[in-house]
């Protein structure tokens, strides 16, 4: 949710109209949480049509797969590799996050998979995962705002005591993007 707020703020700073929608309520008790974000002219609704997303930032591999039908044919995806087990999966014996990542690799040409544990260890906080992924996404060019513009938005929107952490997270995202590019 913070990620979409920062993108919105950066886009508005450039004078672009922004709309977004997110799940609130019952869905916050362990359900799937999504946030649609749309930037630019000619947009009436906050909801993205199937096959209409330029970018999907997935905070969980299974949830990224769930949202895959929204991605454009040549769309970009950035996904955190670590699965989050729902209670139902714990009761029935779990589900395989790695299989989800493999599926995505087979489907999405423009895909960056983030090694969640390594990224969190580098930045020093699991809470910054969203900003790390945002840092990667900014470099893909699929958002329409640059990493520098996102950082400016972050400095305005986030309490000063978190500035340094979020800066590190954005930088970490950039490094992940570079590594992914050089490995291509």
């Amino acid at each position, binding site marked *: 949710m913070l990620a979409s*707020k920062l993108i*919105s*703020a950066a886009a*508005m700073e450039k004078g672009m*109209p*922004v*709309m*977004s*929608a*997110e*799940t*609130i*309520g*019952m*869905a*916050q*008790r*362990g*359900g*799937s949480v999504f946030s649609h974000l749309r930037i630019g002219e*000619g*947009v*009436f*609704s*906050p*909801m*993205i*049509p*199937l*096959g*209409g997303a330029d970018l999907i930032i997935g905070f969980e591999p*299974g949830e990224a*797969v*769930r949202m*895959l*039908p929204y991605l454009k*044919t040549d769309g970009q995806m950035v996904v955190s590799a670590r699965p989050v*087990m*729902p*209670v*139902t*999966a*714990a*009761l029935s*014996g*779990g*589900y395989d996050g790695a*299989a*989800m990542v493999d*599926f995505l690799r087979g*489907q999405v040409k423009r895909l960056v998979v983030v090694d969640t544990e390594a990224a969190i260890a580098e930045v020093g906080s*699991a809470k910054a995962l969203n900003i790390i992924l945002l840092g990667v996404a900014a470099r893909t060019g699929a958002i329409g705002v640059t990493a520098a513009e996102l950082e400016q938005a972050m400095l305005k929107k986030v309490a000063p005591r978190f500035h340094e952490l979020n800066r590190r997270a954005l930088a970490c995202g950039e490094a992940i993007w570079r590594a992914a590019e050089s490995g291509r």
Partner: protein
Amino acid sequence: MHREFLMGNEAVALGAIAAGVDLVCGYPGTPSTEVLETVAKHRPERTYVEWSVNEKTAMEVAAGAAYSGARALVTMKQMGLNVASDPLMCLEYIGVKGGLVVLVADDPGPISSQTEQDTRCYAGFSKVPCFDPSTAQEAYDMVREAFDFSEKYSTPVFLRTTTRVSHGYASIEVLDAGEYAGHCIEGFCRDSSRWVIFPRLSYQNHQKIVARNEELSGVLSGYERNRIYPASGAIANCRKGAATGGISFTYAMEARQELGELKLFKVSTPYPFPEKKALEFLEGLDEVLCLEELDPVIERELIYICGKYGLKTKIYGKLSRHVRCAGENSRDSVRDDLAAFLGITIEKPMQPELPKLPVRPPVLCAGCPHRASFYAVKKAMAGKKTVFCGDIGCYTLGNAMPLDMVDTCLCMGAGLGIAQGIGHIDPDTVCFAFVGDSTFFASAITGVVNAVYNQAEMILVVLDNSTTAMTGHQPHPGTGKTMMGQAVDAVSIEGVLRGIGLRFVETVNPLDQQAATDAVRRAAEQPGVKAIIFRSPCIALTRPEKALRIDGEKCIGCRRCIREIGCPAISMRDGRAEIDGSQCVGCGLCAGLCPVRAIGGEDVAE
């Protein structure tokens, strides 16, 4: 004027502040809650804000303010309007002096509600005019228009939103503080011929209201937001059109970009329906598709108008089964419905078949005290014939496996009555009613009085987590805090119950499982109406204890911790249970039931 990125509910709140609102009250309920919270956050000095004890009370408080010439906003979700319907139905016959806007957020889907009821139908039923915005910008602008309208015609006015309007965000144009409206308040003027409802007055006012709403249909035909978008481009001569309103309008506008610019009628005031404008829209059309969520309100109105004026235009929608009758519309469903109506085949991109995905039903949070409460009752009553009547709140999630502790759930406060009814029919069953603290104050107290008066046999379990958790932690009478920022005397649940006449009222911390199960057993042995208050604060409001760990050497992989309590922080890895330290708050419930004592604090090896 400046631009801000606002949620629809925030837009309603700031729109009301810009309209000079004097009093705002309501009861929390998704998707309406943020309206009142936003007013409280940006509260100008003139504005009084309260979370009322329930929607009925809120409606009455708002009515009193509007009788006094003040501008009042009352907020609730669609289910809440059922609770507030008694004062509302009467209030329309009496009318108002200051503007009264009734914000009701509907929940197509439903996403977090019990019904898919449509407030536009309540508008027709109560004869209260209804404004139905499509976007956050419109919500912002329409609040002010609704206040002006309310005062001009001395009637309460609905501002009805739906989830995607309420919770959608957009960068919108808002007024600067210097541009806000101001007004003087006269105060309440005694006039019993106006403010006291009697059959004679109701008869007279009924006639006036019907005449007024006929007039308003004409007035609203000239309202700029009831708008016809003419056909153009390749299908400029098409004799098919679409009628829509609310969020579906935005989906339809985008579908038009893709399928062709067909004639479109946007209905922003579904009641009174803008009949003249509708006639103008129907002119030259053979067929019309209605795109709307919840009930077929626009569809019925157009069918009525066609009948009244002898038009041959065919009206399609939910009634004709061209559009599915339940659930939310989406950008895609509206596009597909319109394409089918226009006979256009759309090429959809091939979608890969997705692997089996984990289901993620909502569950009680890790460490939620409700889990401990349910588990204590379950253990204490094992093997006994019982029924567990649930209620509305986070604790409805106690129905999920493996707890499985909610046998019934109907509406706010209903568990009390249902438990009594089951008990009268089947006296051998130990009947429990579980109710949260906020729900207790909102609508359970009369149920307790009824039980005591009518000699019911039942156990009331108040799950007191000292907040209204499900809707985002609003204060209530038991918390000792108000939305005006005051610290006040908390209303005591124990005091209320004892005052009603209950002799067995015990308060226990559910995380102390021994004490909790003992209390339940004691209650079950007593006759009459008994109450147990399980008091432990919501984990979202307290500092978490250190996360627990599972000793992988000791764990025998029996899965008891998973099978018994279903905590989302516990999962299996390589045949051993494991605790997710980022979710665990150290409640200790799992540690107490591990047969080999493998779960503990820092003393446990990882």
